[in-house]
């Protein structure tokens, strides 16, 4: 349950923060969530990772579908990802997930220092 709450909170605040601040401001919100909702280190990493992975992945996928994969195929040629929209969505989700996950993980370890 806690895990799912963290996933949802990470995604929610991870969406809200960049509306007002820079693109990576979700790292701060993930850190804060992990600081307040206590879980084991790995669970925290997995939850904060998943929250952003799902947020970015689903957003990218929705945008991509509405766009008929037009732009993602072009960008996936430049990056280069062999023109694969799916790979580009995965890379997108993974980058969001990793930053969020590591931020969450460091918070979870920081919290344990105090307790």
């Amino acid at each position, binding site marked *: 349950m806690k895990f799912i709450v963290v996933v949802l909170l990470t995604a929610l605040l991870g969406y809200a923060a960049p509306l007002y601040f820079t693109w990576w401001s979700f790292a701060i919100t993930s850190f804060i969530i992990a600081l307040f909702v206590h879980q084991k280190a790995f669970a925290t990493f997995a939850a904060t990772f998943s929250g952003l992975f799902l947020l970015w992945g689903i957003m990218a996928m929705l*945008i991509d579908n509405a766009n008929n994969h037009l732009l993602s195929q072009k960008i996936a040629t430049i990056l280069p990802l062999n023109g694969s929209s799916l790979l580009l969505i995965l890379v997108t989700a993974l980058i969001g997930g990793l930053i969020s996950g590591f931020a969450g993980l*460091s918070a979870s370890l920081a919290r344990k220092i105090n307790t």
Partner: protein
Amino acid sequence: MRIFGCVFFAAITIVLIYFLDNQLTLNGSKTPRFGFFLSPQKGFWQNAEPANANFNGNFNFTQLLGKTEVYFDERLVPHVYAENEHDAWFVQGYLHAKFRLWQMDFQTYAAAGRLSEIMGDSSSGTNFLKIDKFFRRLGMVYGAEKTLHAMESDPQTKSACDAYTAGVNTYINSLDEKDYPLEYKLLNYRPELWTNMKSALLVKYMSYDLAGYEQDFERTNAKALLTKAQYEALFPYVEDSTQLIITDALPKIKDQPVVTIPSTADSLYFNYKALVAPLDSAIKPDKNNGSNNWAVAGSKTKSGRPILCNDPHLGLNLPSLWYEMQISTPAFNVYGVSLPGAPNILIGFNNNCAWGLTNAERDVRDYYEIKFRDSTMQQYWYNGVWQNAEMRNEIIKIRSKPNDTEHIAITVFGPVMYDPHYPDKLHTNKYYACHWQAHNESNELGSILKLLRAKNYTDYLEATSTFECPSQNFVFADKPGDIAIHQAGKFPALWYRQGDFIMPGFDSSYAWQAYIPDSLQPVMHNPERGFVSSANQAPYDTKIYPYYIPAYFSLYRGWLINRNLSFMQNITTDDMERLQTSFYNLLAEKALPVLLNNVSFSKLNKTEKNYLTVVSSWNLENDSASIGATVFKLWMDSSISKIYGDELNSSGLPVPNVEPAALLKNIEKDSAKLFADDISTSEKETLEEDITAAFKSIVPVLEKAKRDGVIEWGKFKDGGIAHLLKIPAFSRLHVNAGGGVNIINAFGKDHGPSWRMIVELTDDINAYGVYPGGQSGNPGSKYYDDFINTWAAGKYYRIHLYDKQTISSQKNNLGVMIFVK
């Protein structure tokens, strides 16, 4: 352990963010900030436009005076209905910015010599600092400052520009970083606010593109390699077979300026010695910036009304140079293509008339060798005294590097473009000032703003008479039945061959002595033959014209257009579409018999004979499937280089191109013997040997093309439309279509008909148009390149000068925008 883990992962997070929030250098070019770029909320995903996007909006802007309605039709062409002219230009600025902001911003950076600010001094093998220095030293900013002054001195132009600039900036100010066009995100910079100066720079960029071609250094080099007779044979003033634009007799005028050849010309100018530094051939406008336009009178059309046609040939890029739109105000109602970056409809039609442009191709840029007192360039020798030069410091900002400053001396002739510091490759230790018509104060935008509201022939004449540079052939037709053509521009009155070579700059005798009076630039109005036309050929009969008018004239398109128009009757717009997209190769019609006549059949092997059969049975059409067109093109080029290569390329320095027409004339007049000096056998044999050897040399190329599956003309020339940053994924490369240089349908490799328009001036105007691009500049939009297939297939869209009621009731409109105060 815990502390270590916390610090360790916090550090990893910070390092990860740091790397993803900064540009990295890969293979000599900068990456985007990957984290930002991939963020679905901020990065490129935000530029992925939904396929079913609508373009509705309600906007309140305090700068507006009234209400403006914009209807986007099914091709995303806006039809703008404004209550006053100010609001129309404001909304045009807003729409240009909304759909083409990056492109117009980038082009003005290029024109101002500021690309290093965005791109760094070099990126992916392109030396941007070198390009910037070139434009600074050419005096682009210097010229734009004068143009700006002229624009702002004219109340009509100034108010249009002010409203336009306000419209662009209103859009820019409404943007969050997530809304920036894709290229800003890719290159990691932000849009800069628009200014009237940027519009002036855009006008200068057109001058550079269209009135910036000369080969003075190349010609000076050729002069040192050839005798006078050889030079005249290879680089004739005007081809005899030219179909002139203006065939009327020239008016006789009193007080015609007299130009005199300097007394020192024989020894100092028409000499055949000194070598000079080559001009950098990497930065040069395309010589083939040609175009076709014509108008036929009602006497030759089925409807009894004039039909006007135009297809300007320019470098083809994405986002397209053109943005199509209708603008309706109480003062005018006009449809056509606009250049994003200034208030205009450059080519189009209104309720009363239509107009089109081709480039005059006149050479209005010369170089003077300047003798400075010392390397500080403070004083130069002129008319027997040391004159003070003005110094202009052009500061070039370079991304993540210190600034670079170009010190440019300004002489009476203009800015010193070349000095021992530039180019740094071949030190000649000489100084060359550039004298260019585009450095002068003139207001071309003002002419266009007048022309688009022209009601009749008189208005057209008044508008074109103030147009100075880049000089254009303005074709005109109106509903009452007038047709006309006028080569408008400001031209120096020159003596024979003046300015073809670098001129001595030590006194005023080599200066431009006068300008050609307007009356010697006559307009052809309603000629008896029932049509007017231009395709970058000579405007007047140069044998009797009182001045030398150097240019890079074309021959074959104009000839072919006139040959067709003179016999055509009962013309419809369908006939005009066929002519505008014709692949017929008139050069081949003239040249192929000569080549075939001079090839030694017996010396060819079986494969070579097969190719000879292909080209001799070719139907002379440069369509995409033609193999004959490929053989002919290679054979022609190879023959020129075999016959003239020895003489011209001996110095290893650049020389002007020998045109195929010059080769043909030389063979016909037997003057190829002028080049027989260094060849031992007799002349006739030599020509045959050269042409046979030329043919043999192309066969391996053809065989390779055959193996690679690219021997058909469309694939062989491999035309395409590249993104301005040359990013293949944003380009439409390998567009398999016919055409080429000297063909009416001029689509070559990256160059060709940038807008095809046909306007029949019936009461309800019957018009067609297409350009190789799309209305959106966003590579993430389906409207980015959606016209290209239609264009490549030689098809057109019906285009409408709608009234508001009609457009508002169309079913397939893509959106409505309302702008109010």
